[in-house]
C-alpha cells in the first residue's frame, strides 16, 4: 500500500538558541506551504517531554506518517525523536531532521539570512521525508566478550568489572607489565595513599581472574567487524622468555652483560636495567622480558661466548627462537584505555630540560620520591657537578598545558595537585628545603583538593604567581627568571632543582588506534567521545568505548569512574546478547545490477558478494549485500554505474530532491 505522505514539521526554538537568530514563526509558516505538509508547529524545546508529546499526539490525531524536526544536529537528537516516533506507533525511520541550530542559528548572525537558510533546510528535509521508507533494524547475536586495550588503572578496572559481570575479557597491554602510569606514581593526591599499595592488588586480580585473558607485551594488530561481532587480531610480541617456565627469580637479569646499563622506562630513565628485565619489582606478570633492541645476542647475534641469561636461568625459560605470535578472537565490545604520554619539555627550551640534569619532569619526580624508585625514595640529584640533596626547589606549573605555543590549549587537570603533592613530599623528606611553586592559576576543584592545597601552603610552600621566562645556570645553581605578577616584581630565584609540572598529552602512537578503530580526535587530539556531555564514554564507532586519559586528562578517581562507566556501557550488548544492526544499509536492485563487481571491490567491509541468480532463464551474477556486515557508508552506490546498489535512507532518489530543494528548484 502506498500511503500519501503526511508530513508534520516541528520547529524548535531551543529556548533562544534557535529562536534568537531564526524567525521560527516564519519558518513554521513557510513549512506549512510545502508539499505534503499537513501541520507545522514550533515549540520552545522539541526534545522535552511536552515537545515530544506534541509530535506523538499529531501522529495519532492528524495521521502523520512523516516527521521533520528542525532543531539541533541529528547527531544530537535523532535517536530521541526516532524513539518518539516509535512510541507513537510510527516507523522510527520516518524522521528527518533539519539542523537549524549547530549549522544555522549558532553560526549566523544575520537573522534574515539565517531564517531563509532555515527555510531551505526545512524544505530539503521535507522533500526527503516524503520519500523515506520504513526500515526495520535487525538484531544479531553479540559475542559475549570484550577487548580492553591498555592495562593501566582504567583498563584493569574496566576489565575487572566486565569479568566480574561474568563475561570474558581480553586485556591487551603493550608493555611487559600491567599497571600503567599509576604504577609509576608514588603517592596519590590528595589522600596521599601509596599508589602501588592500592594498585597492586588490582593488578594481581586482573592477572588471576578466571574471566580475564591477559596479553602483556602485546599489541592489537587488526580489528574488523562491528558491535557485537568484532574480529580481533593481537600480536603477542616475542619476549624470548617462555612465560610458562619463568619463575621471575631474576637470576638472568643479574647475569646480563648489559645489567644496569639501559635506562629503565618505568623509572623514566632515572634508573637502569639490563637487556633482560622486569620493568619494576611488582610487575604483573612477574615474568622477564628480553629487550630485542638492546640484547646483544638479538642485535648482534653474539653475546660473549653465549648468552649468560641462558646459563643463569634455572628453569630453562630463555628462548631466543621465540617469534611473535598472532592470536585471533572475537569480541562484542572494545574498550580503549590507552592512557597518555607526558608533555615533552624539550619543546620549551627556555626551561633547559635538555641542558640541566637538575631540571626534571613531575613524573621523574614521582620516581625520585618513590621508595621503589632508583634512589630508594631519597631525593638526590646531580646538579652538573655533584650529587646533592637539593635544598632550594622550584616547581613550575602548566608546562605544556594551557599553552597555545605548544599546541596544547587545554588544562591537564592533574598538575596543580601533583605539584602540591610533590611539594608536600619534598617538604616531608627534606624538612629544611625551601620550596616555591610558580603558577598562574591553581585549580583545586576536586574532592579534598582545595583542602589539600591549603594544607600544603600552610606547610610553608610558597606559591609565586608568575610564568618563568628563562632558566639558566649560575655556578652550581639554576636561576629562574620570573616576574611575580602579583607584585609586578622581577625575580631571579636560585635553586638546586626545578620540577616541571608537565601536562598530559595523547599517546604519541594514538594514530594507530585511530586507524584501527575508526576513532576521531577532539581538537585537543585526545580521542573524541560520541557526545561531550551525554555520551562521554561512547565513540562514533558503535561498540567501542573510551576510559581514562586517552579521552582527555583526568585524575585517578575520574579515570576509575570513567572505566566503570565504559565497562557498564560495554556490558550492555554483552548482557543483552544481541545488538541491533543498523537498518540503513545498502540494498541491491537485482533487476538492474550488471554484476560488474565494482561495489564488491569498493566495499571496505567485504559486505558485498556476487551471487548467481536466474534472470528470466539466464544465469547472471548480481551483487548481494550481507546486511550484518554493511555499515551503510554508501561508497558502493556512488561507484555503481547503474545505480543498482543504494543505501537505504540515503538513496539517490532521496538525495536528489534535497539537492533540488537547496538549489531552489525543490
Amino acid at each position, binding site marked *: 500500500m502506498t500511503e500519501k505522505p503526511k508530513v508534520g514539521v516541528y520547529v524548535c526554538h531551543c529556548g533562544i538558541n534557535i529562536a534568537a537568530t531564526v524567525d521560527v514563526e516564519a519558518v513554521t509558516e513557510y513549512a506549512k506551504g510545502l508539499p505534503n505538509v499537513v501541520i507545522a508547529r514550533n515549540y520552545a524545546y522539541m526534545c522535552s517531554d511536552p515537545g515530544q508529546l506534541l509530535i506523538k499526539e499529531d501522529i495519532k490525531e492528524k495521521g502523520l506518517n512523516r516527521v521533520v524536526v528542525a532543531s539541533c544536529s541529528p547527531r544530537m537528537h535523532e535517536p530521541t525523536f526516532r524513539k518518539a516516533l516509535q512510541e507513537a506507533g510510527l516507523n522510527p525511520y520516518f524522521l528527518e531532521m533539519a539542523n537549524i541550530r549547530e549549522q544555522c542559528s549558532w553560526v549566523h548572525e544575520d537573522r534574515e539570512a539565517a531564517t531563509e537558510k532555515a527555510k531551505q533546510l526545512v524544505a530539503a528535509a521535507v522533500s526527503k521525508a516524503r520519500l523515506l521508507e520504513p526500515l526495520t533494524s535487525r538484531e544479531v547475536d553479540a559475542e559475549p566478550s570484550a577487548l580492553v586495550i591498555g592495562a593501566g588503572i582504567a583498563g584493569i578496572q574496566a576489565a575487572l568489572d566486565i569479568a566480574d559481570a561474568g563475561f570474558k575479557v581480553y586485556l591487551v597491554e603493550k608493555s611487559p607489565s600491567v599497571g600503567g602510569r599509576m604504577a609509576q606514581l608514588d603517592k596519590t593526591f590528595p589522600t596521599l595513599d601509596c599508589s602501588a599499595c592500592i594498585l597492586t592488588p588490582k593488578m594481581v586480580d586482573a592477572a588471576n581472574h578466571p574471566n580475564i585473558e591477559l596479553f602483556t607485551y602485546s599489541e592489537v594488530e587488526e580489528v574488523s567487524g562491528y558491535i557485537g561481532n568484532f574480529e580481533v587480531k593481537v600480536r603477542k610480541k616475542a619476549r624470548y622468555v617462555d612465560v610458562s617456565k619463568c619463575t621471575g627469580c631474576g637470576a638472568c637479569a643479574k647475569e646480563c652483560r648489559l645489567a644496569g646499563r639501559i635506562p629503565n622506562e618505568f623509572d623514566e630513565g632515572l634508573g637502569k636495567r639490563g637487556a633482560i628485565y622486569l620493568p619494576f619489582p611488582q610487575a604483573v606478570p612477574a615474568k622477564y622480558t628480553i629487550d630485542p633492541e638492546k640484547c646483544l645476542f638479538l642485535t648482534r647475534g653474539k653475546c660473549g661466548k653465549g648468552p649468560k641469561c641462558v646459563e643463569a636461568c634455572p628453569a630453562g625459560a630463555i628462548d631466543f627462537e621465540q617469534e611473535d605470535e598472532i592470536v585471533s578472537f572475537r569480541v562484542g565490545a572494545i574498550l580503549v584505555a590507552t592512557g597518555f604520554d607526558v608533555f615533552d619539555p624539550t619543546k620549551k627550551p627556555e626551561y633547559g630540560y635538555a641542558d640541566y640534569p637538575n631540571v626534571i619532569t613531575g613524573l621523574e619526580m614521582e620516581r625520585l620520591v618513590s621508595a621503589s624508585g632508583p634512589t630508594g625514595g631519597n631525593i638526590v640529584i646531580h646538579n652538573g657537578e655533584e650529587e646533592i640533596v637539593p635544598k632550594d626547589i622550584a616547581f613550575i606549573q602548566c608546562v605544556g598545558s594551557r599553552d597555545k605555543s605548544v599546541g596544547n590549549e587545554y588544562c591537564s587537570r592533574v598538575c596543580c595537585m601533583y605539584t602540591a603533592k610533590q611539594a608536600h613530599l619534598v617538604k616531608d623528606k627534606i624538612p629544611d628545603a625551601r620550596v616555591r611553586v610558580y603558577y598562574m592559576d591553581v585549580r583545586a576543584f576536586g574532592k579534598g583538593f582545595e583542602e589539600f592545597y591549603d594544607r600544603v601552603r600552610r606547610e610553608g610552600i610558597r606559591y609565586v604567581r608568575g610564568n618563568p621566562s628563562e632558566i639558566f645556570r649560575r655556578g652550581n645553581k639554576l636561576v629562574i627568571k620570573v616576574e611575580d605578577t602579583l607584585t609586578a616584581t622581577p625575580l631571579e630565584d636560585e635553586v638546586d632543582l626545578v620540577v616541571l609540572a608537565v601536562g598530559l598529552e595523547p599517546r604519541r602512537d594514538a594514530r594507530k588506534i585511530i586507524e584501527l578503530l575508526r576513532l576521531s580526535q577532539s581538537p585537543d587530539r585526545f580521542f573524541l567521545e560520541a557526545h561531550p556531555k551525554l555520551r562521554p564514554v561512547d565513540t562514533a564507532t558503535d561498540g567501542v568505548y573510551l576510559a581514562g586519559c586517552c579521552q582527555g586528562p583526568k585524575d585517578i578517581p575520574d579515570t576509575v569512574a570513567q572505566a566503570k562507566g565504559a565497562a557498564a556501557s560495554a556490558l550492555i550488548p554483552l548482557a543483552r546478547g544481541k545488538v541491533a544492526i543498523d537498518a540503513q544499509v545498502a540494498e541491491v536492485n537485482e533487476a*538492474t545490477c*550488471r554484476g560488474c563487481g*565494482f561495489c564488491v571491490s569498493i566495499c571496505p567491509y567485504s559486505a558485498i558478494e*556476487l551471487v548467481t541468480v536466474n534472470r*528470466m*532463464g*539466464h544465469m547472471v551474477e548480481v551483487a548481494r549485500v550481507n546486511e550484518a556486515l554493511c555499515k551503510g557508508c554508501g561508497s558502493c552506490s556512488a561507484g555503481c*554505474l547503474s545505480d543498482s546498489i543504494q543505501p537505504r535512507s540515503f538513496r539517490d532518489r532521496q538525495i*536528489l*530532491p534535497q539537492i533540488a530543494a537547496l538549489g531552489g528548484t525543490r
Partner: protein
Amino acid sequence: MDLNKLRETAAGIVSREDVKYLIGWRRGTFGYRVSPYFIEDAAGVEELIFSPLCISNLATYLTLVERLPVPRGQQPDERKVALLVKGCDSRAVNQLLVEKGINRDRVIVVGLPCPGMVDWKLLAEKYPETEAPVEMRWQGDDFLLVHNGQEIVVPRAEALAEKCRLCRHPNPVISDATVGEPVQPWEPAEDSGVGEIEAKSAPERWAYWEEQFSKCLRCYSCRNVCPLCYCEDCILDRLNPTWVNRAFNFSENTAFHLARAFHLAGRCIECGECERVCPAGIPLGRLNRKLAKTVREEYGFEPGLDAEGEPFQASYRPEDPEEFIL
C-alpha cells in the same frame, strides 16, 4: 592483410558447434560504408573483409544483443560468440572482462593487428561517395582507394582517422587467435583536439561546449555504440530518480554528456566510436580523451590493457593526487 587467411580462420571458427556466430565486417551497401556482419556458417565468410574502412568497434555487440526471456523448460543459448578486434577494440574486450560484462569462456577473440583506419568523411570531401561500395586497402603506410574504377593512393596523413593518429595500442592486447603480423606501433600524435580546448580560457571552453552540446539530438547513438555503455537499464533513461530530463535543451544535454563522460572515466578505451556515430558532429572523443589523459598521466592507469586489472573508479591508491583538496 591476407583476407584468405582471415576467412579461413573465420570459417574454422564458425564451423564449430559451440560457436553461435562470428562478428566481423562486410562491404556496405554504398560508398565508403562498411557494415558489421554476423556470420553463422562457413559460407558466410566469403563476404568477410578487413580493410581501412573497418573502423567500427564490434565489441559493442557483445553486450548489445538482447537477452530474451527463456521460455520455461528451455535452456538459454550459451554458445560462444567470436569477434574480430583491432587493437583498440581488444581493449574494450579486456575492459568488459574486468567488469564481468562478458564471460571469457563465451567469447572467441580474433585479433587483427591494425595499421590504422580511415576516416571516410575526410576522404569524401575529395572523393565523393559513390552508389557502388568503394574498396580500400593498405598500401605500405598509405591507403589505396578504388574509386569509380580508378586506383588512387591516399597518403596516410590525408585520411588516417584521428583516433588512429593517437593510437598507442594498434596490436590486439587480448586474442585467442591472431591473423596478420603485429604492426610496429607508431609514435602517437599530440592530442591536438584536447590540447586546443585545454588552451582556451574557461569562458571560451564553456562557449565551445555550449555550442556542441546545444546541437545534441539526444539520439543516444554515442551511448548505444559504446562497447562499455551496456547497462540494460541506463540511469539516464530512468525517471525515478530523474538524473536527466527527457526534454532537449542545453542544460539536460550537458548533464547527459557529463554523466556519460564521467561514467566512462577510467573505462574509456578511446575507440572513438561515440564521436564517429554522432549525427550532430559533437567531438565526444575530446571529452573522453581528456579524462583518459588525466587517468593516464595522473594515476598512471590505462584501462583495457589487463583483463585481470582492477576497475579504476572502484579502486584507489593512498597516494592518489589530492592537491585540489582544501
